[in-house]
């Protein structure tokens, strides 16, 4: 690992943060957090590698806060500014951290009754998005505190956290609630009301935040401390609420130091405790990194800086841009789809390259000839060249780094024939899926006159039944049925003007977090998390506790019902020691060796459209021994 020397000149703070900490500490600390969070989002590859899965700023009349999703957690984190102070040459900011579990998560069972009740409200997600409007929301889901401190000379920066291993409250007399026609014990006397594993979740967020800080500073921390104190729990009955020591709970403080500074003194200020710590871990500079911290993202984050020098291993992501095949007759609405897609991506500063063939140029066997890379209005494309597809792709990749490549085929082309050529591009691009745009107005005519129309529909993973505004509802449903008869596997979307929100179908893997896989303390049942979206699309994550039987698994996969659109996960078979990356899109799947043995999670994310009873059960079955 590269040297963790902390040359003070290297600290690039002023490059990404330009606030004034001397005159307005309160604003400056919020601004510093804002800068760390926002700048880490600019590069899609970087933000994904750092662990972000979405960020939203919340501004209220009082303060600034954030909600975010990170890798590995189905719920939403909330951060809000609490207070700031100046002490001993440091400007310090404290931020509250909350975790709002997904309504279906097992973690809800460990929230307080009140929090659990909130999580099941139909408007829960809106409350989460606006949690700053409601102090109760922020506090009953609170899990810890984050600290940010900058020394006045701006030569040192500290990032810290505090959290309890478990936040626990005990109902001495139990709690009875109305149910089943009478009163039932929601909590047995002496049972747990809240028993939430705050520390592990706080650590996960802290890791992503620290990685983002390392990334922005282009520097590694040079100092680390972890200190544990004996913790408390709450016991209450109808009259009294009191906190008592709990032998199995610890109050844990972690701190990271960047640059040269008196971190020890700062740490004591933040901890401010008189009691005796139960444990301490210290690290600095040249020491060996403590075992529990060896795989933290913040050690390798600075190398995410330049995409060109990315180390795939380190980043754990696939660098190849996704390739989407776009097919459909002339006039069906391909160009409209493309325009919407490109504008959407451009607004998010993402670059799309489109390869389009000359109209009418089809060889005798139906294979496309003469791939030209042409310009399309608003936005994407690049050079003009003739030659075969592989050369076109190579040329694009050598001059640009597109976030997407779209191969647009014309009406006469049969996308099924392309698949061979596409598989030859495996090293360069990741074939994502085929989108076919269908003209609802002329569907019958096309189907009866052109056999290639049927093939275009068959080849699709996503079907856009377009021009829905020009067709009556009954005809539309009939058309949809026709499409599903020809291709039961594909996901069908009804569109006008080719407008399909790409975030629903293309960004999915970025955003659907894989669920809480490390629920401390629960035994290893298969825990399930389902996430709903509109258009009948839903996402469910399955934890897999044991290596599976390869034959059994693959035979289930090969006969999956059409409702399943995508699956992705890290799995293990009983016949091989290495973990395997499994990727499935509409009937096609790929197995590859997953090169990171230290990742022990085994899971499958399933994304499907529509109802499919028994579906998940089937997969479970395949996953069991």
């Amino acid at each position, binding site marked *: 690992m590269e040297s963790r020397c902390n040359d003070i000149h290297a600290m690039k703070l002023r490059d*990404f943060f*330009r606030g004034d900490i001397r005159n307005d500490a309160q604003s400056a600390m919020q*601004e510093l957090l804002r*800068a760390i969070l*926002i*700048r880490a*989002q*600019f*590069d899609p590859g970087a933000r994904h590698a750092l662990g972000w899965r*979405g*960020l*939203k*700023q919340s*501004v209220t009349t*009082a*303060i600034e806060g954030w909600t*975010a999703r990170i890798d590995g957690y189905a719920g*939403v984190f909330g951060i809000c500014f*609490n207070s700031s102070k100046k002490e001993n040459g440091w400007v310090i900011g*404290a931020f509250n951290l909350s975790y709002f579990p997904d309504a279906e998560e097992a973690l*809800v*069972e460990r929230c*307080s*009754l*009140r929090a*659990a*009740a*909130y999580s*099941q*409200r139909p408007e829960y997600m809106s409350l989460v*998005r606006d949690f700053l409007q409601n102090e*109760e929301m922020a506090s*009953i889901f609170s899990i810890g505190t984050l600290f940010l401190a900058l020394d006045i000379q701006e030569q040192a920066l500290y990032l810290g956290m505090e959290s309890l291993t478990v*936040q626990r409250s005990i109902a001495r007399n139990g*709690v009875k609630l*109305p149910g089943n026609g009478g009163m039932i014990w*929601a909590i*047995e006397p002496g049972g*747990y*009301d809240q028993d939430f594993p705050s520390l592990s979740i706080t650590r996960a967020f802290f890791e992503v935040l620290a990685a983002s800080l390392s990334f922005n500073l282009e520097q590694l921390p040079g100092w680390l401390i972890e200190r544990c104190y004996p913790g408390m729990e709450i016991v209450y009955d109808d009259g009294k609420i009191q906190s008592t020591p709990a032998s199995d709970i610890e109050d844990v403080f972690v701190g990271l130091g960047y640059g040269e500074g008196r971190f020890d003194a700062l740490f004591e200020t933040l901890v401010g405790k008189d009691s005796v710590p139960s444990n301490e871990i210290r690290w600095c500079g040249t020491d060996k990194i403590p075992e529990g911290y060896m795989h933290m993202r913040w050690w390798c984050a600075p190398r995410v800086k*330049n*995409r*060109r020098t990315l180390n795939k291993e380190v980043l754990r992501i696939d660098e190849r841009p996704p390739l989407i095949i776009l097919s459909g007759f002339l006039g069906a609405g391909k160009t409209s789809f493309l*325009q*919407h897609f490109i*504008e959407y991506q451009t*607004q998010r*500063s993402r*670059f799309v390259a489109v390869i389009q063939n000359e109209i009418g140029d089809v060889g005798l066997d139906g294979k496309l000839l003469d791939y030209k890379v042409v310009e399309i209005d*608003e*936005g994407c494309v*690049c050079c003009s060249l003739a030659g075969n597809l592989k050369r076109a792709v190579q040329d694009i990749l050598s*001059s*640009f*780094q597109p976030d997407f490549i779209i191969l647009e085929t014309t009406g006469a082309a049969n996308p099924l024939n392309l698949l061979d050529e596409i598989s030859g591009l495996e090293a360069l691009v990741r074939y994502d899926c085929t989108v076919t745009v269908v003209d609802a107005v002329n569907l019958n005519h096309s189907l009866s006159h052109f056999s290639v129309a049927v093939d275009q529909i068959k080849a699709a993973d996503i079907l856009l039944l377009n021009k829905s505004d020009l067709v009556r509802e009954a005809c539309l449903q009939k058309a949809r049925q026709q499409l599903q008869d020809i291709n039961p596997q594909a996901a069908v979307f009804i569109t006008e003007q080719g407008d399909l929100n790409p*975030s629903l179908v293309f*960004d999915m893997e*970025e*955003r659907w977090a894989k669920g809480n896989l490390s629920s401390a303390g629960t035994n290893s049942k298969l825990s399930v998390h389902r996430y709903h979206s*509109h258009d009948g699309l839903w996402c469910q994550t399955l934890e897999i506790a044991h290596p599976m039987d390869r034959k059994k698994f693959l035979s289930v996969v090969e006969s999956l019902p059409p409702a399943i659109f995508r699956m992705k996960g890290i799995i293990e078979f009983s016949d091989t020691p290495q973990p395997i990356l499994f990727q499935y899109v509409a009937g096609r799947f790929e197995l590859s060796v997953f090169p990171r043995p230290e990742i022990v999670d085994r899971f499958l994310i399933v994304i499907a459209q529509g109802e499919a009873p028994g579906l998940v059960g089937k997969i479970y079955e395949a996953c069991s021994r």
Partner: protein
Amino acid sequence: MSEDKGNFSRRDFFKGAAMGVLGGTALAMGLYSYSPWRKSYFPEVKRKMTDIGVCKSVKVTNISETSWFKNAVLMGDIKAAGGLLVNQYTYNWPPFGDGTGLGKGSYEKGIAKIKHLLPNNLEEAWRTTEKLSVSPDNAGGFAALIEVEEMNGRKRKFLLDSGWSYKWMDESFKREGIDQMLKNNEIEALIISHEHFDHFWGVPVTFKYAPNITTYYPQGFYPEGLQYLKDAGHKGKLIQVKSGALNPIIPGLATYNFPVPIICRVYGEQSIYANVKDHGLVSITGCCHFGIIQFSETAFREITYEKNQLYGIYGGLHISPFEDWDPKYDDLVISLGKYNYQKIGCNHCTGVLCAKKFIERGYPVQKGTARFRSPDPAYLGNGDRIGFGIEV
């Protein structure tokens, strides 16, 4: 005992139940408010509610919104140079080209080629830089003329931004008569929204006609930007607009500098707020990089305005610099509706299809005429005007 609560599942029990089911237990009374580890959650920060005064009307003339002409070329250049985190001064775009190619430039080497020609010989400066820069024909620029009518009827003019290409901006200035206005000292100040190439690098064009013009720039400018203000020939008063606070200019007109990192190594963007009598708050933005949502919420927090109504908006509208964690909210069309703007003039980085969707939804978008290289009437295009509190 804690793990196995028998058959009691909190998720099942509370699904669809009303909050009142918790009854009068310690829970309902707010057990949450007691906790040895709870600190007070929300600090004492008040809504600032600053009164910026009122004006009678505001008229905006779009001098140019076409910051560049081909998105493909711009995005391609950015990507090839290394992406959105790369310092814009290193791209080797005009006017800072030094002939070494994409991504290998610097402010110092670039300015050295043309400094002696600024600001009075812009034709030669641009000819020189065209030969040394990457994609020089793609450069356009953003600038707008703002005319504020005071309550007493007096009209006051301000220039928002100065675009990018010397050639294109000079042409656009002449087309709208800005050159004459500057020469006659009719324009009181130049307000630079942010340090981006397409809003700021064309300042020599303004300084050629009015080198003494008072210039407002946002705190957050990098050293290159500060140096360029000098090298570009500015001789007048230079005012740094501090971030996070309202900066009043004249009654009814103020700017607010949002301290956020912006792509291409820029920091901070100031936007203009105008409080129009009997109508409400009008926002005039360059790019609104931090997002129209943040912008509107900040207005609500910081300013008191007529009829508590967000009345109008002009400029480029970004939804947000980052991805929402819920895909269905990643939609500017839906989000904008919440603010109930009464008059919208959008262009530049808004997106033509997005603007069309606004129109389809029935949002009060004032359309343009798609002249002088503006792409579509859904945009308030080059040479088009919009009035707030006044008909144009």
